[in-house]
């Protein structure tokens, strides 16, 4: 059995492993959080606690999913806001959890609607025993425009609220970003200037998942109507990784808690490689349960063993330097596809995609039902490899373009 130390320090707090529940329905009360800790989650961001004056009143139903072919849960849309329990109940749950699980990390997510409430909530969750605060500046489905992602896209307001939270608490604090914005760095910088110690990214993406074709209403339908609301799950992982990379480039050394579509240890490793120190999860848990952390932890340990590292820390941000602006990429060569005729089952999908979606380089022999690549036409985009159902097309011969700088050697190319 593989055994590796998964612990990591984030904003000065030591996590037994990087896996946390994100602030959401999965960490809604004491019982749920207790079960999550027992299953082995390293930390919990308790569902966002709001000011007493803000009354939560949720719709029913409140979720929708995007499916593609046989996969029913590519992405997930939800309309829930913040914690529906009373402030007192939430604070009591926090205190009890911290007392019973002193070695696992408890993070209080808070959301005020003015400076006073932010400061007050920060003070209250600190008194309740939280190890860290996350500022929810990013929920896209709040019923108040003084809260949520409307705040999170306004750098000046974010800075002021961060200052307010810091007045209320000395705990390490991260600001949770909305992706419904062009430049996250600007907002993140404002938060750090306001006193935030780190950044959590991303919250959900504003979306309409599906429209009912007969009723002509977005899903889910609430008495004949629907709303735009937050999209999450595997489908948003690419967007999350992109924002995290940009934060790491724009704010050197910033500590990040990564969020967005993590389901497997491979997803988690990707978040770490682009610079996350912890990873927060909700959608995977909503679909499969807390148990998914078992394979995330075990798989990550195996990965550490393969990578010959003893501390997770050693992997943080290793991919950052390898993700560069498009104008800096090497544009001197072409990689041609290599077709394994034994693996090929003769479906012709590469031929269709190459003709209709690329450069008509794949030629089709009707008798043998096998493709051949015409190098005169092929530009090396390798769309063919992506559509092949049996993995018969790989990267083959490398050729330098006529425009390539002289003296270049194929052996120097890293595919």
């Amino acid at each position, binding site marked *: 059995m*593989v055994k590796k130390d998964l612990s990591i320090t984030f904003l000065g707090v030591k996590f037994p492993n990087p896996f946390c529940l994100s602030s959401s329905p999965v960490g809604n009360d004491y019982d749920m959080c207790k079960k999550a800790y027992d299953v082995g989650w390293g930390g919990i961001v308790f569902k966002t606690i709001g000011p007493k004056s803000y009354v939560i009143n949720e719709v029913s139903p409140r979720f929708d999913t995007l499916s593609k072919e046989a996969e029913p849960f590519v992405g997930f849309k939800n309309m829930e806001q913040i914690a529906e329990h009373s402030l007192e109940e939430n604070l009591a749950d926090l205190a009890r959890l911290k007392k019973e699980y002193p070695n696992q990390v408890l993070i209080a997510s808070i959301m005020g609607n003015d400076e006073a409430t932010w400061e007050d909530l920060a003070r209250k969750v600190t008194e309740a025993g939280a190890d860290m605060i996350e500022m929810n500046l990013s929920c896209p489905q709040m019923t108040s425009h003084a809260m949520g992602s409307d705040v999170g896209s306004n750098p000046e307001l974010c800075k002021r609220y961060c200052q307010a939270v810091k007045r209320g608490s000395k705990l390490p604090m991260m600001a949770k970003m909305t992706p419904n914005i062009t430049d996250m760095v600007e907002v993140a910088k404002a938060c750090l200037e306001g006193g935030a110690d780190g950044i959590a990214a991303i919250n959900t993406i504003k979306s309409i998942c599906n429209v009912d074709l007969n009723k002509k209403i977005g899903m889910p339908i609430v008495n004949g109507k629907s709303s735009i609301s937050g999209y999450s799950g595997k489908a948003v992982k690419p967007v999350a990784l992109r924002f995290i990379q940009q934060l790491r480039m724009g704010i050197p050394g910033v500590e990040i808690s990564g969020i967005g579509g993590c389901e497997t240890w491979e997803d988690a490793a990707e978040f770490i490689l682009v610079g996350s120190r912890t990873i927060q999860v909700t959608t995977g848990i909503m679909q499969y349960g807390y*148990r998914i952390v078992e394979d*995330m932890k075990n*798989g990550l340990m195996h990965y550490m063993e393969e990578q010959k590292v003893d501390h997770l820390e050693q992997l943080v941000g290793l991919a950052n330097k390898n993700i560069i602006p498009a104008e800096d990429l090497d544009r001197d060569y072409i990689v041609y596809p290599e077709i394994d005729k034994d693996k090929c089952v003769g479906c012709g999908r590469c031929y269709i995609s190459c003709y209709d979606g690329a450069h008509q380089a794949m030629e089709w022999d009707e008798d043998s039902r096998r493709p051949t690549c015409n190098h005169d036409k092929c530009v090396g985009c390798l769309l063919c490899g992506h559509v092949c159902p049996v*993995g018969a097309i790989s990267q083959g011969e490398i050729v330098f373009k006529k425009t390539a700088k002289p003296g270049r050697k194929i052996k120097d190319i890293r595919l």
Partner: protein
Amino acid sequence: MSEKYMKEYEAGYTPKLVMEEASRCLLCHDAPCSKACPAGTDPAKFIRSVRFRNFKGAAETVRINNILGAICARVCPTERYCQQGCSRSGIDKPIDIGRIQRYVTDFEDAMKMDILEKKPLNGKKVTVVGSGPAGLSVAGLLASEGYIVKVYEKEAKAGGYLRYGIPEYRLPSTVVDKEIKRIQKIGVEILLNTPVEDLESLKKENDAVVVAVGHSKGKMLPMFAGKHFVKTAVDFLHDVKRKKGNVKVPENVLVIGGGDVAMDTVTTLRLLGVKQVTDVVYETFDEFKASKKELQGAQDEHVSIIDGYVPVALKGKKVVFNHRFIPAKLEVKADLIILAVGQYTEAGLLGLEVDKLQQVTNAKGNLFVCGDVSPSGEKTVVYAVRSAKETAYAVKKYLGGK
């Protein structure tokens, strides 16, 4: 013709196909499959690991729970165990758990993983008699607990029925070799060509002795005894496997019996190129003993299977059968007759008492029995593994371990 016999019958999954099959799994709460494995292999957990792309973790789950994981993956009649309760059956058909397990254990092998661990030696000696599935498993389990374990094997190679019984197309010898190597790697010493002659002195020299000699002999029916054209299935399968399929078999063979061993025999005969293979079975199809997969394999090879007949007389090379329920008579003449009508143990040769069920009844003190000769349940590899777990626990308890 041995080529067909020597090639593994069922192809393994590719990475894409194993993901497709794992994606069919409903990831049940309180999964019925995991409750139904006699050896406790926990398919729900390893399929979930596959689903979440943790193949190494899946391999750990299989191997830690089932020391013969790669063998069970191939030979287990999963339809009777894990797959029987599969919730996916409520939609279409059960998950092919055996084949996922095979992918996982092949992956373990390809990655050269060493999953079995070994506690420090505790100085206590245990000898196991027999290196079949039960003997190998109990030896491995005790070695991992820190016991000094030796296995006595009378044959030239270890593995017992795995080595000499289950045909090559269903269980390649290379798979058996690798499983044995894993067990040797954690310290088990296997003494080949070493029959046990004096059980009493073994008991004195060791802290515990485990007899796992199996039901290694094929039964002969009295009317066939001594006929040169009659063999037992056990002897036949042994001969074919040892000679890698290079055996001479006549063109017209009659097999009597309807269990998994009979199915292995008839399928082997067809794969060896025998033209006419007739299998006459005592049970009717609604009480058939062989697993569906094995029966299907025989039918795919176009074996003539005739159910419900019992042999009553032998006239020259002609066997006369009567139907068990209806007035019907069958006569089959064949050049070779193979009997797959049950097996018995030779444990009596060690001075042990054996009952009608071929189970040893007088194992006492530091003597333990494991596998077919114990009250272990069904005569399958997975039950041998289960029995080995029980025996290892009993030995440990007897020797004061925790």
